[in-house]
């Protein structure tokens, strides 16, 4: 046979991706080449063994869908880039400041930034003003935070309600389906039970009728036998009684005969004596 499949054909055969004709050709080739057939069988077993390797469980990251819509990974990166840019600018300013005699100082009067010699700067803003400015800024920030919280809460409530309603609806539908199913199941069960019961009763009666018939038949046979037996016993009884009667009659007759004989003898004796006396 000149046909020799290459490894690509054999791979296709192994994964069932050959047409019927091609597959038949490969099978014919394998029949005539037991070594290659064993090789292919071994590869198939190898696949089976390797498939026993279980997946490892891993927890996916948390669902981030409730986060604000503009917060994604690229935004985080952009913010990081901005912070880095600001830091680089400040560093540049410090280097430039060093070469231009940049001055930075802090005392009771506040923070001072400047070039060359430090001069007296009139105190512009009082501590109270700074405090009130800070308070105002904090209040504003707090208000914004509160507003954000309210928005998030509203969104969560809306999501929750929608989810709850969907789940309730699904539950009702499933319950209804289940109840319908249960009713159908119960009807089917009852019908099945009735049919089985009917068969059982029918079987019982047919079996009972047969048994009863056999019993009566046996009873009749037994009764006939009993009557026959009784008749034989009665016959024997009467026969015995007749025999007894006959025996008794014979005895009586014998006794009577003996008595008559005795009387006759007595009478004869008397008559003889009388005759003798007369003579």
């Amino acid at each position, binding site marked *: 046979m000149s046909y020799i499949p290459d490894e*690509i054909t054999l791979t296709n055969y192994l994964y069932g991706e050959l047409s019927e004709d091609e597959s038949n050709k490969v099978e014919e080739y394998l029949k005539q080449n037991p070594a290659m057939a064993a090789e292919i069988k071994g590869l198939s*077993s190898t*696949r089976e063994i*390797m498939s026993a*390797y*279980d*997946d490892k469980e*891993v927890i*996916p990251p948390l669902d981030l*869908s409730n986060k604000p819509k503009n917060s994604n990974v690229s935004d985080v990166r952009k913010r990081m880039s901005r912070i880095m840019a600001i830091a680089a600018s400040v560093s540049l300013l410090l280097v430039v400041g060093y070469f231009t005699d940049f001055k930075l100082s802090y005392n009771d009067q506040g923070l001072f930034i400047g070039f060359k010699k430090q001069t007296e700067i009139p105190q512009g803003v009082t501590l109270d003003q700074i405090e009130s400015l800070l308070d105002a800024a904090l209040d504003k920030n707090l208000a914004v935070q509160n507003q954000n919280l309210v928005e998030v809460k509203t969104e969560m409530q809306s999501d929750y309600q929608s989810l709850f309603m969907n789940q309730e609806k699904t539950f009702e539908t499933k319950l209804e389906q289940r109840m319908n199913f249960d009713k159908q199941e119960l009807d089917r069960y009852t019908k099945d039970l009735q049919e089985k019961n009917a068969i059982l009763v029918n079987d019982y009666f047919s079996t009972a009728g047969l048994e009863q018939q056999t019993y009566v038949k046996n009873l009749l046979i037994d009764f006939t036998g009993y009557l026959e037996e009784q008749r034989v016993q009665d016959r024997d009884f009467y026969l015995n009684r007749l025999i007894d009667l006959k025996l008794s009659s014979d005895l009586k007759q014998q006794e009577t005969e003996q008595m008559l004989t005795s009387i006759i003898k007595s009478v004869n004796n008397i008559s003889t004596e009388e005759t003798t006396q007369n003579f």
Partner: protein
Amino acid sequence: MYAETMLDIAMNHSDSLINQAKNGDNRAKNKLVNLWYKRIYNFAYKYFSDHDEAMDVTQKTFIAFHEKIWQLKEVAGFKAWLYKIASNHCHEVTRQQDRSHQHFSTQKAEDVHREATAIFFNPDRKYQRSELNGILQEALNTLNEEQRTVVIMKEYEGLKFKEIAEVLELPENTVKSRLYYGLTHLKKVLVARNITTEILQS
């Protein structure tokens, strides 16, 4: 070989999610991450046989997914596209950490080999599933990178030959050839370890 679960069905029927994700819907993106996270992690784990490196590649893959999903041309090509990202990260990590990974793999392979040898000397012994997993991972580790990638994609991730060819940017026949020689090599390793289908059934 590859049994389809409910999760697989969800993964293979998520066209609308992919479309929404392409349009920037973060919720759809997160759902896709949840659907595919385990598969990509297991692909990387079988590639490296190391949890940390697998987690690293998985995270990088999904960061890239978040940033580049809008570039996906066809929804049908999502699976191949995602595995391509993961596969590229695997190659990148292999290149970067070649020496340390080599050391780690050798170390790990020695441990697993010790377990396998114990079974070899006592072939009737029934062993735990985790031990078998270790032996099969060791067998995978003996493949070269190219064959290992193809075997994992075909046998464990259920990719079609066409998809693997697309991921690796190779002709389909090359993929089939690599798979054939990869399986042949695995067969020899398993025979040497006395691992048979009968042992699996016991």
